[in-house]
């Protein structure tokens, strides 16, 4: 799937010992890094360039589907008393439109850009976990297919994209519709979490040697903030979906007020996710804007440090705002005042970025190329969306316009203006890189103007319809309320916008197919992704350059040639395997050599088996669920088998006279870092569960439950003993450590099983249900850790290097420690009321 670079200089002498021309280096590296040829390559590739393009293409596909749904919505609303579709269909239309756009278009489009660009921007050869990239991609495709299927079958979710129970639960939606949402979206979220772990570890540890954090391209900062926000923002939603599905499938009453649940719990969990989600969508776009404006203005970014600080504070602030989506639910007045003030405050870091961008344009000499046109469209649109956002943060105003078309208009100004426009700018900006060609046909500007005019024609006056009392989500309306003119104008304009988007697609496809080869760095940018021939070779960089500035190509125009000549690290592929460098986080000094696995269909197969797990839940074929879970565990074991060298290699030459160990011989291999950030997400999920318990305990009407669980001393003894053993296992050297840890995990599991005997019926009350979920959560993690302990023991016996002297023991420590901790906390908080009271 790779095309040789157009400009590999042919006979530059290498400074390294082995004489190798740039062309021969290119051929040797390509042999090692290339994906499988032909159609098979699609299924076995683990290369970030391929997968980035695949993510982008599938995301665009879902944008088209979501857009078609939007057109159907506007067709229905064009006139009063429309008989185009009935409420049953209409409710599916807007629910699926919102769901597809948010979960299957916006987030994956970011993932696509990040997966494709980050290694190239950062100066490395691939992402931290190539197989995980592929696994996430296939989970996305399979989960998305479930939702598409539900739509074609006419049984799509229909409770709105935020799925409020009881409407979305058995009471309001007895059919399978809601299950498609809860299960399908959770499946897709695996890919978001996978990508976020991957992006975080890559940015922290996989950069060009010497590149400090403060020298990273600005897009990497935005991607880092976004990824950490995904790790902490998505778990509340995943938890909520699990709880709601447990209620729907097995009657655990988390959201049913009669049995101690509360519908408001869902709203809190959903918006704990939903508000950060908006910034998860906006920040990558802001990253693209920060990258593109300086290049278009022929200058450097103004206020890099300020912008990073603004992005970080937006990320942090956005977790404190979720209640502004619940201003009309009867929140106490003080709460309203606090969240209202906090909500308006996000305008400040947003303003810092906007004015830094404008300042950059003042400082330079802006040129009106196509990417810049889209960014100007962004300014004109997003500023309006931001201002209406401040308006709805003012509580009395929100009481009036909440759930009207004012909100629909506001959210599209933010999402289309703040995400779609800049991302189209980004698409045009990086297009020469994606396809290695320069734009040929000139329909881009026409398309822009159609979209821009169509957009404002659609949504500007819809604000007014909202003020006139037009509620969102109504399938039809009566004439005579002053809405007709606005709606017909909106519908006609939306078709103009759709034609514009279609032209963008045509433009991209036509250019990809027929236009002429372009020059290597057409915009004259300073970042590393332009230091390679395009389309990019599978290995990105023929050798890894030392980078000590934010715009390396401005400071050293010779850099691309020196990279190609092999005057960097790992320029001589003598070991015949995929290698790159991992760095110390802050200093950027090379720390160890990472050896990547090769092409494999395993990620896709594992995603398919994961899909069977979710399918079993969906169609209530519960026998399939444990089988699929076992299958996934089997794949996971197979996954680590690939990291199984038996021979110690010691320090290996990495070029430039430097010798480094490989990842399997260091105490903090990539897997340790990946585990750390996965546990961050996992811990957030656990924290959300504790929050839910505390919320029900204090707010839900029908508490306390009829009876608290009162476990005896046996539970405490088993739990504390188990935890002590896990602690001892950490300190014990050698294979015995794994055995001690395993014994501790078993004792903890015993404590959990004993605990469950004290709350026999999880459907009796939300308290019992919570106890079961907390204990089940603990048991799940104990099993995972036990599996890892067993595997580690076996691998040590087999003499596998990474298990004997490397970081695998520390990875186990991480998971076993976490499992012990959540078990203790879970048991303590559920037993406390019964024991103390």
């Amino acid at each position: 799937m790779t095309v040789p670079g157009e400009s590999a200089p042919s006979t530059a002498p290498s400074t390294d010992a082995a004489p190798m021309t740039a062309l021969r280096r290119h051929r040797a590296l390509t042999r090692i890094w290339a994906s499988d040829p032909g159609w098979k390559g699609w299924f076995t590739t683990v290369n970030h360039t391929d997968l980035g393009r695949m993510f982008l293409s599938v995301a665009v596909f879902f944008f088209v589907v979501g857009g078609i749904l939007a057109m159907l919505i506007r067709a229905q609303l064009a006139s009063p008393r429309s008989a185009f579709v009935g409420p049953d269909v209409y409710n599916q239309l807007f629910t699926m439109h919102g769901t597809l756009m948010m979960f299957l278009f916006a987030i994956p489009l970011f993932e696509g850009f990040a997966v494709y660009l980050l290694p190239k921007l950062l100066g490395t050869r691939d992402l931290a976990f190539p197989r995980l990239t592929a696994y996430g991609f296939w989970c996305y495709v399979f989960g998305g297919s479930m939702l598409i299927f539900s739509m074609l079958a006419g049984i799509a979710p229909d409770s709105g994209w935020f799925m409020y129970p009881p409407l979305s639960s058995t009471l309001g939606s007895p059919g399978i519709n809601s299950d498609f949402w809860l299960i399908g979206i959770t499946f897709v979220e695996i890919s978001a979490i996978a990508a976020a772990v991957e992006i975080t570890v890559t940015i922290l540890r996989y950069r060009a040697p010497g590149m400090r954090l403060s020298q990273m391209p600005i897009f990497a900062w935005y991607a880092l903030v976004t990824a950490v926000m995904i790790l902490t923002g998505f778990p509340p939603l995943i938890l909520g979906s699990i709880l709601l599905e447990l209620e729907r499938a097995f009657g655990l009453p988390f959201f049913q007020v009669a049995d101690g649940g509360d519908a408001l719990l869902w709203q809190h969990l959903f918006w704990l996710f939903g508000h950060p989600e908006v910034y998860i969508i906006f920040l990558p776009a802001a990253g693209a804007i920060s990258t593109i404006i300086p290049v278009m203005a022929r200058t450097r970014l103004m206020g890099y440090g300020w912008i990073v600080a603004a992005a970080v504070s937006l990320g942090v602030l956005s977790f404190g705002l979720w209640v502004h989506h619940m201003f009309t639910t009867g929140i106490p007045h003080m709460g309203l005042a606090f969240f209202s003030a906090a909500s308006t405050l996000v305008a400040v870091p947003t303003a810092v970025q906007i004015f830094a961008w404008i300042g950059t344009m003042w400082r330079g000499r802006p040129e009106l190329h196509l990417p810049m046109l889209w960014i100007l469209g962004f300014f004109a649109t997003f500023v309006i969306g931001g201002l209406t956002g401040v308006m709805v943060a003012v509580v009395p105003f929100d009481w009036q316009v909440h759930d009207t078309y004012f909100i629909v208009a506001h959210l599209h100004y933010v999402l289309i203006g703040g995400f779609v426009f800049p991302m189209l700018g980004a698409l045009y900006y990086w297009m020469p890189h994606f396809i290695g060609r320069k734009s040929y046909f000139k329909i881009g500007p026409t398309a822009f103007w159609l979209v821009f005019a169509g957009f404002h024609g659609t949504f500007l006056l819809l604000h007014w319809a909202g003020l006139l009392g037009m509620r969102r989500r109504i399938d039809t309306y009566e004439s005579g309320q002053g809405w007709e003119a606005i709606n017909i104008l909106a519908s006609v304009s939306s078709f103009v916008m759709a034609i514009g988007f279609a032209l963008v697609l045509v433009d991209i496809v036509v250019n990809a197919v027929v236009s002429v080869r372009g020059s290597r760095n057409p915009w004259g940018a300073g970042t590393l992704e332009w230091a390679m021939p395009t389309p990019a070779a599978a290995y990105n960089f023929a050798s890894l350059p030392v980078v000590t500035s934010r715009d390396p190509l401005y400071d050293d125009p010779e850099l691309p040639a020196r990279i190609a000549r092999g005057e960097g690290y790992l320029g001589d592929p003598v070991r015949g395997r995929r290698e790159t460098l991992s760095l110390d986080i802050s200093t950027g000094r090379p720390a160890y050599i990472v050896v990547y696995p090769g092409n494999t269909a395993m990620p896709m197969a594992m995603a398919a088996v994961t899909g069977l797990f979710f399918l079993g839940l969906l169609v209530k074929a519960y026998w399939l669920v444990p089988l699929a879970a076992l299958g996934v565990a089997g794949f996971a074991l197979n996954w680590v088998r690939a990291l199984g060298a038996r021979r110690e290699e010691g320090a290996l030459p990495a070029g430039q006279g430097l010798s480094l160990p490989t990842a399997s011989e260091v105490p903090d291999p990539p897997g340790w870092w990946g585990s750390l950030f996965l546990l961050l997400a996992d811990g957030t999920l656990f924290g959300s569960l504790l929050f839910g318990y505390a919320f029900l305990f204090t707010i839900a009407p029908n508490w306390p439950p009829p009876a608290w669980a009162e476990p005896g001393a046996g539970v405490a003894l088993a739990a504390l003993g188990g935890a002590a053993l896990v602690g001892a296992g950490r300190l014990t050297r050698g294979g015995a450590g794994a055995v001690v840890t395993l014994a501790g995990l078993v004792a903890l599991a015993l404590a959990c099983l004993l605990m469950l005997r004290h709350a026999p019926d999880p459907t009796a009350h939300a308290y019992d249900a919570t106890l079961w979920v907390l204990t089940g959560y603990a048991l799940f993690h104990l099993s995972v850790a036990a599996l890892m302990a067993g595997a580690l023991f076996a691998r040590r016996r087999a003499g596998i290097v990474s298990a004997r002297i490397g970081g695998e023991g520390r990875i186990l420590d991480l998971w076993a420690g976490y499992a012990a901790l959540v078990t203790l906390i879970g048991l303590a908080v559920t037993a406390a009321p019964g024991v103390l009271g």
Partner: protein
Amino acid sequence: MHPAGPAAAAISRLWWVLLVGATLIFGFVMALIALAWRRPAGTGDERRFVIGLGLAFPLTVLAALLAYALVLGERLLPRPGPDVVTVRAEASQWIWRFGYPDAEGRATENVLHIPAATPVDVEITTTDVVHSFWVPRLAGKLDAVPGHVNVLRIETDGPGEFAGLGSEYNGPGYAGHRFTVIAHAPEDWAAFLAGDLP
């Protein structure tokens, strides 16, 4: 927006303030961008843009806005008073039932009777899913959440009929989930409570 009560009137005034402010800010930002093309390169001063415009400017505007909104919000809250009338609103898919503590046993469907020009507290509940109670010309909306009772204060300027809406999406009958509010002059209200009015 044609406000017909003090709460809605205050919100309507708020909207015009917001609209004028937002338009001015929007015009200002667009002008700044346009100027980037007209000015010689190199004129952007980092402190002026990032600290002056990025930090100080929004902080000032927001502080003023918040103060205004807090005072306003305070006035819209239900406060206990001697002449406050209480009514009950119970939402279901897709019907509204109203009850009157001043005349137990009196119940109406899809029509809410209230005294005109008197503060009225509506106690909002639901029998099934989440709903929302909204009379656009009188006040903002407030949700009906299972197991909870939310209280909304409404008040009219005078007698009349006002359209009411269920305004939280609640399934296939959502578009038709409406009701009417009838505000009575004092004599009529007494007659209604006595059961003389239908």
